[in-house]
């Protein structure tokens, strides 16, 4: 089977379902150091539940894909050398923040230059403070690479699931934005509060309602988050010629 084919007998599928329930907690034999860790960024301000988001995202990715992220990911600061323990960062906020230090800006540049991926998630549901601050800091870090909309034909929308538009806890704008570095998108900026749609309490209940609402929207938000992690790991893998005919056929079938 696959990179994905789902061709299996019903009986076998059921066995695999049972197995999968018990598998997500299984650690890699190589230890956590070799696994994917979706590190949350700590700016030192008010907590926005970053770790609950990265934990839930790790769980969803592990449950749905062959990727095995660390289920209890850590946090880091831009100025901290531990930032480079993992090439994927989750940066979430909902309010304006003061300008980052020069060391932090330099760290962002190096992080991206060396191959890192940053997912910035605006949790303000349309507020302007966090958005204004993020744009300001990205202009400082990458003055020659402005944020730009990520077109609907980009690999991000088909790195695992086939998505027609980004949605999070809120419906948000029709496209993501990003900073392109070389031949990949190194920074993705979402104004859809994707993390908000993933957050659960300790009993497993969703902590935030999705707007305008519905389980389908929440599922689509989760799928977008999974796609972003897979894109960070596979970049343009799905643009390879061998994938194109299959994906085009399926795109055709769901329209």
């Amino acid at each position, binding site marked *: *089977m*696959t*990179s*994905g*084919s*789902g*061709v*299996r007998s019903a009986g*076998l599928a059921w066995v*695999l*379902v049972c*197995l*999968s329930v018990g*598998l997500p907690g299984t650690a*890699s*034999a*190589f*230890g956590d*150091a*070799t696994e*994917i860790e979706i590190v949350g960024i700590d700016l030192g301000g008010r907590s926005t539940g970053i770790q609950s988001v990265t934990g839930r995202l790790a769980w969803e990715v592990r*449950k*749905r*894909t*062959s*990727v*095995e992220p660390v289920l209890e990911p850590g946090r880091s600061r831009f100025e901290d*050398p*531990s*930032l*480079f323990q993992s*090439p994927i960062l989750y940066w979430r906020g909902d309010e304006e923040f003061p300008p980052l230090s020069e060391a932090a800006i330099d760290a962002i540049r*190096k992080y991206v230059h*060396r*191959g*890192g991926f940053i997912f910035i998630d605006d949790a303000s549901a349309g507020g302007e403070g966090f958005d204004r601050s993020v744009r300001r800091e990205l202009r400082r870090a990458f003055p020659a690479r402005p944020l730009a909309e990520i077109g609907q034909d980009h690999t991000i929308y*088909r*790195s*695992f*699931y*086939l998505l027609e538009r980004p949605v999070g806890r809120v419906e948000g704008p029709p496209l993501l934005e990003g900073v392109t570095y070389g*031949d*990949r998108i190194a920074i993705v900026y979402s104004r859809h509060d994707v993390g908000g749609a993933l957050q659960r309490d300790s009993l497993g209940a969703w902590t935030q309602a999705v707007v305008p609402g519905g389980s389908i929207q929440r*599922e689509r938000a989760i*799928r977008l988050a999974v796609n972003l992690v*897979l894109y*960070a*790991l*596979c*970049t343009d*893998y*799905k643009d*390879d010629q*061998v*994938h194109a005919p*299959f*994906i085009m056929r*399926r795109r055709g*079938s*769901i329209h």
Partner: protein
Amino acid sequence: MEEWHWQLGIWGGTTTAIVLGCLLVILWLLELRSFRGESSRTRRFVLGALGGIGIAAVFAVVLQLTLVRESFEEIAGGTAVLIDDSRSMTLKGPDGVRSDAVRALVRRWQEDDRVDPLVYQFGSDTKGAVWNELADSYDPTDDRTDIRSGIDAVLERSTDQEIGSVVVITDGADPGFRASTLPLDRTAPAIHAVVIGGDDPLDDEAVVSLRADTTAYVGVPAMIRAEVKANGSLRGAELGVQLWHDDRVIEERTVVLDAQGRGLVAFEVTPKRPGRSLYRVVIPLDEADEVPQNNQRAALLRVGRDRIRVLLVAGRPSWDVRFLRDFIKRDGSVDLISFFILRAPSDLTAAGTNELALIPFPTDELFREHLGSFDVIVFQNFDFEPYDMQEYLPRIRDYVKRGGSFLMVGGDHSFSLGGYAATPIEEVLPVRLPAGGGVVPGAYHPKPNPALVRHPIIALGPSPALTRRTWKTLPKLHGANGLAAVKEGASVLLEHPRARLPSGAPLPILVVGSAGRGRVAAMTTDESWRWRFASDETTVGADEYELFWDRLVRWLTRDPLLEPSRISTDRDRYGVGGSIVVSGLLRDPRYRPIAGERVSLRVLPVGEEDANGETPAAVAEVLAQTDREGQVRASIDGPSAPGAFVVEASFAEEVLAREVFLVEESGDELADLEVSTSELGAAAEKTGGRLFLGIDDVPALAELASNTRRTSGLITRQPLLSPWFLFLTLAILALTWVFRRRWGRR
């Protein structure tokens, strides 16, 4: 004896005469046109006739026609003997060696002193020889038979030396000779032809010609086309032909021959390695073949890299996979096909197939249909069992043994953890796997093996000391796959600083080796990406990461620049006896320079064995001194015979490097030995000469002598330049003018 003929005295000869004639005809037609208004038919006729006669008279005067009368006298002409000096005259037929037959004939003729002929020998050019010494000095060595040029040279001399007959002694092995092209006029001497062996053609099978692209690319098919021929008793309906690559047969064909015993065969070859690649088309030797020398011909292809084709199969997305794929994909010389397992059977996607951007893993297509098209296959933390790949593992093993390359990169789905112990894959890996899996946890700096620190894959510094220092400063790796042992002949390049094999030897992190004709590598970590992505606190090894992977891929695909030793010749083709400059870098198998040593450079024929089936002796050998870096350069006198050769550099009885080259002759002297008997017969018939097949019926040379004609007198007349003709012309022109005036025309 007299002969009359006309000559034109006008400048430009016939061409000028034709042009002028056309202009005058046009002028006459214009004059006729001017009479159209004349009502009297008599006047029109008179004016037209006088005009035509006048123009014709002027034309005759201008042409300066000259009548030449030549008288000849018959005298006894000299005799020229023209002897074939090509190598084909050394061949042995049923009646003995052809050159011996020539010597015998010459001695027989020399017994009769009535004739003292002029003697010429012809091959690629024609040169004079001394008649009295000819029987002893005749030693044909030329690489070309050109009967036409030989006869031409004698005919040119015959105008000065009054040669009455030319006796051509040849085996007639000149397929291009045509009697009709000879410049034979009435004064040409008689041409007699003695065809040595013409009475009994050679029994011969031959590769007549070979055509191949001189430039080819790894993995891209190239064509080698040959024309073959069978003569004499060996002529049949079919002929078996082999294609050899280096020293082994890679294909055999049966060629259907036409009525002339000729046939064409085309072989498609796909070079596997860059560099020079030697192919030979060979007709297996028949005992009856009287010319074994022409049973093979060689083609030397300069093989370059088009693009390396890499198949990367990853068991799951990871940073190691991501960074390796990005690096390989950026390399324009690599054509990367990658497959990542994005969803394991146990994963719950919560979506239908149509909502997923996933494709089936095309195992059959990759590992059955297109397996042979890949230069390197990389299994990166990939376990085969969930994908029903058991049936493909023997194919991958065979692919490697046939010359493919295979790399296994570690992780929790690799080596024993991937279930590869006791599988066909383990057969080709350079390591033995423990039955029960095993992981060595913890962070570490891999150490370069001190004995192989110069190996290009791990030589990250310009010196061993800097290489060791570089490896110490790179970011640490985490975890390694456990192994049971390292196979004999494999090279451990990187070692774990603490972990040990059951034997007590350090646990390898990177092992390289060979399996059959292929190359293999085992890397027991999936953490090399950390060299590429690290904080400033440790040395960021972006350059080292790329250097390491670039060299590992190139080593797997046998990039000549990464071999311990390499030599090359200054050219890949030489003439017979040419000087060959050999240069290169010589290192031992551990990549240590062979510095300041005398090494042997030997030239050997390729693929030829002596009567005992042993490798032939070197045709040339020199001893050369290497410098401190192991560089060597020397000049060798090239082989004196054409063919395919290899130059070997050896030290301490061990061959370190080889390079092939061709020595080519100027023509295809022995390739096509078909006798041009009919053409020689036609030349003889045209000049009143005779054709002899073999020497038995050839008469004494005096009987072949002929008279020749010598010009004894020459008388010229120009009747049209006489005063009477000029007066008549002027009178016609004047009469024409008078009639025109009288009849009212201007």
